[in-house]
């Protein structure tokens, strides 16, 4: 009978060595990723600031040409435009006065209730200086940045003018997603990078809005409560729950599901929440000037 082979001694697995070897690629990966994002951010800011004078110079030329062409309009037309603007100005001044009174009331009530003082927002007026046709409705670059107090996440508003010269309505255009010293990149409400908390005007339900891309020109509102009823055309407003977001700014209106999406306008998402589609209130193709709300 042949003697059986002696059993090979089992190799002891050194756990700490395995952990060390596993940790090295993880740490290296984290370092590479951190380095890439830091490098990307630094280079992006440098590029935007380096080219800023060139683009701004081109904008100055464009504005000068626009002023000259305006001066060539017939006097009657200019006079009627001035009259209309004066009317709008008077209406807006009255509204501002009323808001000042409300602000003072709010401040007094907060003091009485010993609630923390609301710091409010600063408004920074900016011009759209760059856009790319391939992402025309999804993002654009504006002429103000960190030097003017703008930070990532700030809300960007614009004004929709009524067709017969009424006072303009303030609507949400998007959010700042990147800033350099003198410029900022804005993601519009249809850009998937733009997310914020919204509420519906009639049903008073809150949900989370995410852009659905320029091809559909819609955004999806998810996490809506199941119990409420939602109708097409219902107004969507900012809820004030997101960071740096005041309450009650018009974002858009509920609409049908975009073409190619095999779903109803409002669907129940897994039985827990409802989802609805929204079309933005802002005319994204024609934005030229915006107001950025920055924290005080």
């Amino acid at each position, binding site marked *: 009978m042949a003697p059986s082979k002696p059993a090979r001694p089992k190799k002891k697995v050194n756990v700490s060595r395995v952990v060390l070897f596993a940790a090295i690629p993880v740490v290296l990966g984290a370092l590479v990723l951190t380095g890439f994002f830091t490098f990307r951010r630094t280079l*992006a800011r440098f*590029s*935007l600031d380096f080219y800023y004078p060139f683009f701004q110079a081109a904008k100055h030329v464009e504005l000068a040409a626009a002023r000259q062409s305006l001066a060539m309009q017939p006097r009657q037309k200019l006079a009627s435009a001035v009259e209309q603007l004066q009317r709008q100005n008077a209406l807006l001044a009255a509204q501002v006065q009323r808001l000042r009174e409300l602000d003072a009331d709010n401040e007094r009530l907060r003091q009485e209730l010993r609630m923390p003082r609301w710091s409010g927002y600063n408004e920074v007026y900016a011009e759209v200086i*760059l856009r790319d*046709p391939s992402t*025309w409705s999804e993002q654009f670059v504006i002429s103000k940045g960190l030097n003017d107090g703008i930070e990532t996440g700030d809300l960007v508003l614009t004004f929709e003018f009524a067709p017969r010269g009424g006072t303009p309505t303030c609507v949400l255009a998007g959010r700042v*997603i990147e800033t350099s010293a003198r410029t900022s990149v804005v993601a519009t409400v249809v850009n998937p*990078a733009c997310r914020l908390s919204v509420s519906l005007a009639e049903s008073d339900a809150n949900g989370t809005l995410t852009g659905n891309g320029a*091809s559909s020109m819609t955004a999806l509102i998810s996490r809506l409560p199941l119990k409420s009823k939602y109708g097409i055309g219902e107004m969507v407003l900012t809820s004030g729950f997101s960071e740096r977001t005041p309450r009650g700014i018009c974002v858009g209106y509920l609409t049908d599901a975009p073409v190619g999406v095999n779903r109803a306008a409002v669907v129940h998402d897994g039985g827990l929440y409802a989802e609805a589609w929204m079309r933005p209130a802002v005319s994204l193709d024609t934005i030229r000037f915006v107001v950025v709300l920055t924290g005080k």
Partner: protein
Amino acid sequence: MFAFLYFTFWSILLLVVEVLLRSAGLTVPLLGFFFAAAAVAVSPRMALGFALVFGVAMDFVLGYVMPWDGILLPVLTLPVFFLHGKQLNSDVLEFLAGAMIPSVVALPHIWTSLTTPDGFASLMMSCLFGAFLFPVTLALVARSVSRLQIGAADAGKGGV
């Protein structure tokens, strides 16, 4: 040194013009035409390096998170490494290369371009425009390089 200055001057200028044209709603890949032409007429290696740097710069200027142009513009300079000088003298090849450049630059958004009627029409127009513009750019770059006496020796190895 002269080749480096030549590339720097035209890259900065064409980037500004291209971005301003894009902001006006026109996609004309001027940098793509220039780098493809400069790769043939001046130095493929220098064109490759500048295409990488200015492609990334253009993406960042336009606010893109992913630097697609930084990848695609260098691609436009690569074919010259595999071709011989005589083949590049063909007019038909120049027209074809010119027609290809806008479609290569539009690759990241090709789905939108092909699925929307406006996008498809504008891509076709860009290709047609590119087919005529690229031979002109090539001739202009070649002439300016010979006038300025920027040769392959100045630009480093690889001038065709």
